[in-house]
């Protein structure tokens, strides 16, 4: 426990020192929310039961933030650390894999939590979006989504061979995913082929889950399908991670 707390402090320090990570995965969803909600926050979305755009976008940016921080940020950090040899160095120290991984995940979850609070505060302050009512359901849903994207992020590292390729591969996956899954727009207005893709992506189900909780007053226990699909994706990522995670740089 002492080593876990020590490592957690170290990881938090490293996170705050990483400007690129802080901008692209932490700040960008907040900035998009401010920009887009300023432009059309008061419009009504017909295909979404005439909800106001601001709360719809707010939930969308929470989903975008989850995939940015827990999936993209975590995967890039892990690949860079693996390829530079930092993970290999850590293996030579008494720090155990469970201590390391739990401290790393806690750090990324903490960053996501701060980001969510930021989005909620911005929404309330500038776009009269009330704070969500079902706090327990929301926290559970966010935890589920963040952990699932962490699992997918760690799983993805096995498929990336170089530090140079990390950003390119990760961006090519998560940015289209965010668009297609409906973080920025309602997927109900998409053409059929895009909706077909959206129907298999985990972010689609995570967004439905948190929108149902935040906008439509549902509790998480009424959301069996959405919870199950998000969890299944997370477990799939975890299985890949457990089977093929590497601590050492790619050879040659």
């Amino acid at each position, binding site marked *: 426990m002492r080593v876990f707390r*020590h*490592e957690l402090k170290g990881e938090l*320090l*490293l996170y705050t020192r990483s400007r690129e990570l802080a901008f692209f995965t932490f700040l960008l969803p907040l900035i998009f929310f401010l920009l887009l909600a300023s432009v059309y926050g008061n419009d009504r979305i017909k295909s979404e039961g005439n909800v106001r755009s601001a709360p719809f976008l707010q939930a969308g940016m929470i989903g975008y933030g989850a995939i940015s921080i827990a999936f993209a940020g975590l995967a890039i950090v892990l690949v860079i650390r693996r390829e530079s040899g*930092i993970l290999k160095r850590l293996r*030579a*120290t*008494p720090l*155990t894999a469970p201590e390391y991984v739990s401290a790393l995940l806690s750090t990324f979850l903490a960053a996501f939590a701060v980001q969510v609070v930021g989005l909620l505060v911005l929404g309330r302050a500038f776009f009269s979006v009330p704070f969500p009512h079902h706090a327990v359901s929301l926290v559970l849903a966010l935890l589920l989504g963040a952990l699932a994207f962490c699992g997918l992020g760690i799983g993805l590292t096995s498929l990336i061979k170089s530090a140079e390729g990390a950003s390119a591969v990760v961006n090519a996956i998560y940015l289209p995913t965010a668009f297609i899954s409906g973080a920025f727009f309602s997927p109900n207005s998409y053409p059929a082929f895009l909706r077909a893709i959206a129907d298999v992506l985990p972010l689609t189900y995570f967004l439905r889950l948190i929108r149902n909780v935040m906008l439509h007053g549902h509790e998480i226990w009424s959301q069996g399908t959405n919870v199950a699909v998000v969890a299944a994706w997370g477990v799939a990522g975890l299985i890949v991670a457990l089977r093929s995670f590497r601590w050492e740089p790619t050879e040659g």
Partner: protein
Amino acid sequence: MSAISVRDVRKSYGALEAVRGVSFDVERGEVFGLLGPNGAGKTTTVEILEGYRKRDGGSVEVLGVDPARAGSDWRQRIGVVLQSSAMYETLTVAESLRLFGGYYSTPRPVDEVVDLVGLREQRDQVVRRLSGGQRRRLDLGLALVGDPELIFLDEPTTGFDPHARRQAWETLRSLRGLGKTIVLTTHYLDEAERLADRVAVLRRGEIVAAGPPAELIGAAPATEIRYRENGREVVLETDSPTRVLNELTAKALAENRELEGLVVRRPSLEEVYLTLTEEEAE
């Protein structure tokens, strides 16, 4: 009890036999050098001892434990400097040492390590701004911060300029003064000659010679005598230089003639090493 005991260790990567039946012991407090050209199996051997690689055969004990089954407690007692000096670029020297020190139950104080590796002026400098030699010294500091009994150094001065190498050697000598056991791989002969109590020379995964550097040189075949006679260079190799020199000089004195450019040389470790490993150049 030896710090390290290695018996008939083997390791293959596919068809390539990287280590082919290597045996040696390292005593406590000893500086042991593994010497050999690139691809001779040095790093593979050391990474088996560090617990990174599983051996295919043979037995290994490091501090009384099989590294293939060793856990966190064993890692408290070893320090590792890898070939690549990977570290967190955004932390300062002191922050890096504090972070890694926290993994150990009885770490050495950060400022003590900073002084030991000669980075006091860079103490609060971000790692990204360190020079190559300074990074390598921090690398060593990170391996020392847990106050280990046994330290592995894989080619610690590769890529250094001569000045930085001499500084690194000074640091390594001071470690010996602390009573640490050190295993060092290198392809620099002068480094092994100056630092190691004993060396083993690896060639194609096998030990072709082992012993104190002076003994390896002593075991070399011949002393070389050179001089010029009528403008021609004469080279003699002999196992009994005293007799040969005596005959040469007596004859020259009798003829009242100078042995021009007379040189008597013992082979250096470098020449011994090149003889031992020359097949590598095939």
